């Protein structure tokens, strides 16, 4: 039983350290939100990709970057209400 508890603690530590580490009860909302945030962060972190998207949208790179940042706040809407 102690082993199981430790595994559980380790997993929690891991989830705390690395955002996006899944668990058995990951919901669809958690998963999609996580993927969307990862994607938005990646768009900003690859300057040529951000440049490409800015030209497509007809705006400056800084505005596109802000849109990506803003998109990270709540990319897939609020979490659905959990049934008690």
């Amino acid at each position, binding site marked *: 039983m102690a082993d199981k508890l430790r595994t559980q603690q380790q997993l929690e530590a891991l989830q*705390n350290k*690395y*955002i996006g580490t899944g668990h058995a009860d990951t919901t669809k909302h958690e998963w999609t*939100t996580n993927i969307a*945030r*990862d994607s*938005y*962060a*990646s768009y*900003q*972190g*690859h*300057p*040529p990709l951000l*440049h*490409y*998207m*800015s*030209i*497509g*949208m*007809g*705006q*400056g*790179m*800084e*505005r*596109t*970057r*802000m*849109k990506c*940042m803003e998109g*990270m*706040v*709540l990319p897939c*809407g*609020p*979490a*659905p*209400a959990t049934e008690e």
Partner: protein
Amino acid sequence: MSNVQQTQAFYSLTLEAPSAITAVVTCNSIPGLKNQDQQIFEARGQRIYLHRIIENEDRTEVSLSTVCEQNVFGIIRGVTSFRIPGTATDQLVIASDSGRVAMVNYDAEKKQFKRVHLETFGKSGVRRTVPGQYLASDPRGRCCMLASAEKNKVVYIVNRNSEAEIVISSPHEANSWANLCFGICALDTGWEHPVFAALEVDYNDAENDPTGEMYSRREKLLVYYTVDLGLNHVVKSWSDTVDYSANMLFGVPGGQDGPSGVLVCCEDRIYYRHDKTAPLCIPIPRRKGSTEDPNRKRIIVAGCLHLSKARHEFFFLLQTEDGDVFKLTMEMSEEAKAQPERMVVKYYDTFPVAKQMLLIRKGYIYVAAENGNSKIYHVNDLADDPEVEPHNTFKSDDVSPDPTETYKPTYFTPRHLNFTSLAVDIPSLHPLMRTHVANPANEDAPQIYAIQGTGNRSVFKTIRHGLEIQEIVNTALGDFPCDNLWSLKHRSSDEYHSYLLISSVHGGKTIVLSIGDEVETIDDTSFLTKWPTVTAAQMGDDTLVQVHARGVHSILGSGAVNAWPSPANRTITAASANDRQLLLGLSSAELAFFFMGDDGVLNQLEDMPEMSGKITALSVGQTPKGQQQAKYAVVGCDDCTIRVLSIELDSPLEARSVQALSAVPTSIEVVEMVEPGSSGTVVSYVHIGLESGLYLRAIIDEVTGELGEVRTKFLGARPTRLFPVSISASQQQGILACSTKPWLGYNHPGSSIYTLTPLVAATMEAARPFNSEHLDGLCAIQGGNLLIFGIPKVDGRLSASEVALQYTPRAMTRNPWNSMWYVAQSDGNTLSQATKDDLRAKAGDAVPAEEFAELEKHIGLSRSTGHWASCIQAIDPVEAKAATSTIELADNEAALCCEVIPFASREWEVYLAVGTGQHMMPGVAPTAATEAPKGFVHIYKLTESGRQMELMHKTAFASPVYALHPFQGRLALGVGPELFVYDLGM
């Protein structure tokens, strides 16, 4: 399966490194330079560069030269530089995708970057929680912070130890869960504990509230992180809400220089915030004009600070997304020096939209452009005088610093450059939309056709492999082809050339020109004009020597003429001279050698050794500096050999070595050049041009006269002829090799490797150096023409010619029958020409259309959300070098793709098909209220051999058309998820 190739290999070669700038910063990295002489540390794609601005005394010639460049094989996301107290040069810090912080120095001796520290803090890769997205450094050089888009921040404290080594601390983390970082900057706190400011949004509450109520109440915080140097940790020391649209922070000078704190740049407003002082706010002025939307809000995209530490004065230059640059100053209250009372914003100038903008202390502004060429502007005036343009000056007096309060927007009128002037235009290729390799003009090598740029700074480029030449004079000499020319000084001590001799074997004569203010023919001359010349040279102090087939004609300084007739029944076939030595090759395969005494008289060596075959080319080396005679001559014969002979007086014409060649040598030049990669060691090179069009280069061993290190290159189908020239752009000796096109051989100024690059010019018969009072360049024979030209730059190897376009190019296609190209162009969120004309007419705009267009070229197109400006142009890059036809689209339609389609039903006549979209909203999710975008395909008939386009038909589709292709004499097109094949009706 037997015909499947098992080992297929592809090799990629980068012709031009990326020119799009990711991050750039000023620094003082080269030891020994003045503090004013700042360098530019820049990241472009995978490469880091160190640039310097080079100027002449009166600043009429300014250029940007690259001191050092290096590939880092990683994605660079940010750079910064800071001076650690007690060190001589700036530390450069690179944030990349490696999960490590890299500190580098510039090593001036080795001319390369030197790694000082490389500390790991996270996983590699661009990840949302691994720092690297943001980078800021303390202005006093004590620490730097790296932050990620979400959660993590890490601070490194740096120090100098007693051995003058840079010591870096272990990472100090300042992480907060569910926290997004929109930007960071370092505060200037003087010598108190360093503080970093961050713009943060906490999404935890918003995410866990299913009603969406918390999301609508989300806030953006300005957070201060104090680095406690005593306790060695980082603490969150202050936070306050700011305008939710905030996107960028700038640290305001502190300590003795100013109030400290930050500028928080938001949409339409700039705030000053600090934990110790009252906030201030000022709106970002909007553009005034009949075609400008008065409600459009701008954000700040770039900015720089100027701080005069001596006078404790500072100002910011901030650029909006339109490219307008504002000068922001702060006025302090009378009683408390550290209490800012007012912010003043003054419209400065409009530059291309920058990724980053740098103010260089020498008085330049470096604009690292987001799209197109980066530019350096010379600062003529800092706009300090309040009397100048008071209508463009705005104050923060009546503006509430509360983001929820309303305010009155301010307006200014954009104009041409006023306080600055363009100093350097740095060529670039970004953003590159499409390229196509073709050879419609039937040149030696195909060209790369490219569409590049955005908005009205877009261009259609023809890129060629080669150096550009700057043609200064091009005149016809007569109706006979000339084949060689010589530029001569009158005396050896002269600085400039005085005579130009042009020889024509076909015309059987020599033309003598004098070089002065103008280049004109002299009729009355001591030179022989009735025969073609074999060679001509200025020898000794003031003797001019002209060699023709029948003898040697020398004109002494006194005006007396000496003539040496060639021996009976023998003619001179080849000749070469330097300051003192003259070597002739006779038709009998004999060599005649002369040495010039101090009296200017040529003394012949009695011995006339016979070569193994007819002499086709020979060369004596240049006289080395401070010596009387060159050591070796090289003689080439028609039995495909070259021989190295000693020509020193104590062992004249003794054979040293023989080299066999693959073809008959047509031209030989012995040139002394600096050995590449050495620190100025001069080596004798023999350059050999062969009848087969090959070019060879070998080193002559100084002691034995043996030839070694032979390099070969095929230049073209014509026999190669060589001419030693001096290259003014890099101040060194080079060689011009003329085959089907001229090639220039030189030591590359950047890599210092011997490089052979073609010139973008027609075939040259011969070329020589040309120095006059007004020009330091080259002269050449092109058929029957005399060409005088310069080579402005030798550091690139591609050169481009441009045709300006109207809007951002999206697609291009070539007419298969001629050299016409068609370019589909469209700009989102931009007013179309028709709308602008309408608005101008309605507002009664008195500015003439041409003047308006010229200003628009400078300040950019008028923008408005949801509008599209679009056109289709026919471009002739070969003959007209301009657009021959332009069709503007209206009704919010945007051209997206174009293709030239041969229709089988029209006997394979080609038509231009253009796919368009209407009412498109890029980046905006469609709602019920917005109209769904539609699409069209336009068919244009091409007339006047493709120069004009005539609309034949327009077919509507349910969604925008992004792809067109010819398919078996019909048109294949993609509409949404469907593929159609269409034929031309009627």
